[in-house]
């Protein structure tokens, strides 16, 4: 019987409470790190060097900053406005159709290993979100802020879900190689990365169907949201 050591979990508890109470996440994460370190009796200096080392070694996570200057420049010269105008010129473009098209193309390209073909900073912010918003504006006129946020959030979600469930089909992707290495290390022979990639296909198809079904319903949701919004406005005007 192994003893159950719960002390290292103090950081997890701090994270859950801190995020739920909406303290600044940087502070919550740092406090959780310090508390976890102390719980397992690390001294201050070891804790500091662990912080420093891990932070240094994950600097590539900040590489999206490199994309921002060109995006910011293009936005200065009306990139988002152009994306909206362009969508307005395509009569059949709706928010749902734009998002579904992006989702399908993104999941298929990820399955072929083209992971860097899109991303939150390079495609969602400058192109996909303005186009999805533009299509909704054409249909319904100026949108309230909360509805704009909802459509933008859907654009970001499309990128994530399509990427995650497409990439594991590609057999040279890190996750597949990680699984393969794990099985070999644990003495299970005769499994090729191809087998793992093949078993990723059912869930990838399920993700496609489930999410596109939700996106198909989004159009009706937006229409409903707008109607309720207008009704509320009217009733507010009547009341005042």
């Amino acid at each position: 019987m192994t003893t159950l050591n719960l002390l290292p979990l103090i950081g997890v508890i701090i994270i859950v409470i801190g995020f739920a109470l909406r303290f600044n996440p940087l502070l919550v994460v740092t406090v959780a790190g310090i508390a976890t370190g102390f719980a397992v009796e690390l001294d201050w200096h070891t804790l500091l060097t662990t912080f420093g080392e891990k932070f240094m070694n994950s600097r590539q996570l900040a590489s999206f900053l490199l994309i921002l200057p060109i995006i910011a420049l293009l936005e200065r010269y009306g990139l988002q406005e152009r994306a909206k105008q362009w969508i307005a010129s395509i009569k059949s473009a709706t928010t749902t159709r734009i998002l579904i098209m992006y989702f399908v193309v993104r999941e298929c390209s990820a399955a072929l290993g083209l992971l860097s073909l899109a991303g939150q900073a390079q495609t969602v912010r400058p192109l996909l979100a303005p186009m999805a918003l533009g299509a909704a504006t054409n249909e319904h006129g100026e949108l309230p802020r909360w509805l704009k946020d909802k459509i933008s959030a859907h654009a970001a979600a499309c990128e994530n879900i399509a990427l995650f469930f497409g990439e594991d089909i590609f057999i040279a992707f890190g996750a597949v190689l990680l699984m393969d290495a794990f099985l070999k290390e644990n003495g299970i022979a005769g499994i090729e990365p191809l087998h793992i990639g093949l078993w990723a296909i059912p869930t990838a198809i399920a993700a496609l169907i489930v999410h596109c079904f939700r996106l198909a319903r989004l159009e009706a949701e937006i229409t409903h949201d707008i109607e309720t919004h207008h009704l509320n406005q009217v009733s507010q005007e009547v009341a005042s």
Partner: protein
Amino acid sequence: MTHAPNIEPTALLEIKTIFLIIGVLVAFLVYKTISDPNHPKKITTALFWGLFGSIFLFGDASIAMFGAQVTHTWVGLFVIGIAILAGFGLVSMGSYQTTSQQEKESYANKYGNKLFVPAVLIPIVTVFCTILLNDIHLGSIYLFDQQHITLGALTLACAIALVVGWKITGGTPLLAMSESRRLVDSIGWAAILPQMLAMLGGVFIVAQTGDSIQSIVTLFVTPDNRFALVAIYCIGMALFTMIMGNAFAAFPVMTAGIAMPFLIQMHGANPAALVAIGMYSGYCGTLMTPMAANFNIVPAALLDLKDKYQVIKVQIPTALILLSFNIVLMYSVIF
């Protein structure tokens, strides 16, 4: 992805060079913040980004000159400084001189679809370089750092897009950098969160938090009930991923703790299907957690959403449906 560190060939676009470029960009933004006449929290905001930027500008040089121990110590102190500045609300937006809505509309009409060219160039050049130019070299000098080809390709693509954007709009790269302060400031602390979480993940590994989670999950194991085992493995993968923010960190712990002894060895499950579907169950967790900040929080900040958890909220229904699908699928195919 990590490869075995062996001989390191020299490259034109080394990872250290890319970090230096990021450092220079951030330093420029700090300078712009200090010269902002109407910034409500000028000094502390400049300090916040200054601490962050120095880790990129001086980190590698400091390791070369003073060694890892000294460097990691001051970086650790800087990180705590960054957390305190952000935690006490001392970092804010400033004032920005960008174009008005009207000017944007008229520029959009003037340049038309040419505006899309630089934006579309970034992914195309990145993919082109990673596929066709990945191991291009002259003698022993490679174009890209062989450990970080995508990052090198992305950097090159951004540089090319900047030049093309300059050609089309007349806006110089310097103007582009100034304009990016508006974006970086609106992203704010979220830009640093992914690295902070990677750091916390490191502390969790040192503290062996994974073992504690594994032993809690094992408490629920009923070795004879196959369906319950499958459900515990998949839900455990999702939950552990939500805590660590990364399915790769959850995978070895949960698979070694539950799937190997109970499903593969005891019930003879098919390993390929098991690991593939297990990993996807972890991805369902990734969609539901703020700990996967670069996927869930940074985009919310990039899109300037009022609720920084809104992307997660939109993803939760799909994630839960797919998690249930995975459990049923795994149960019906692995035995």
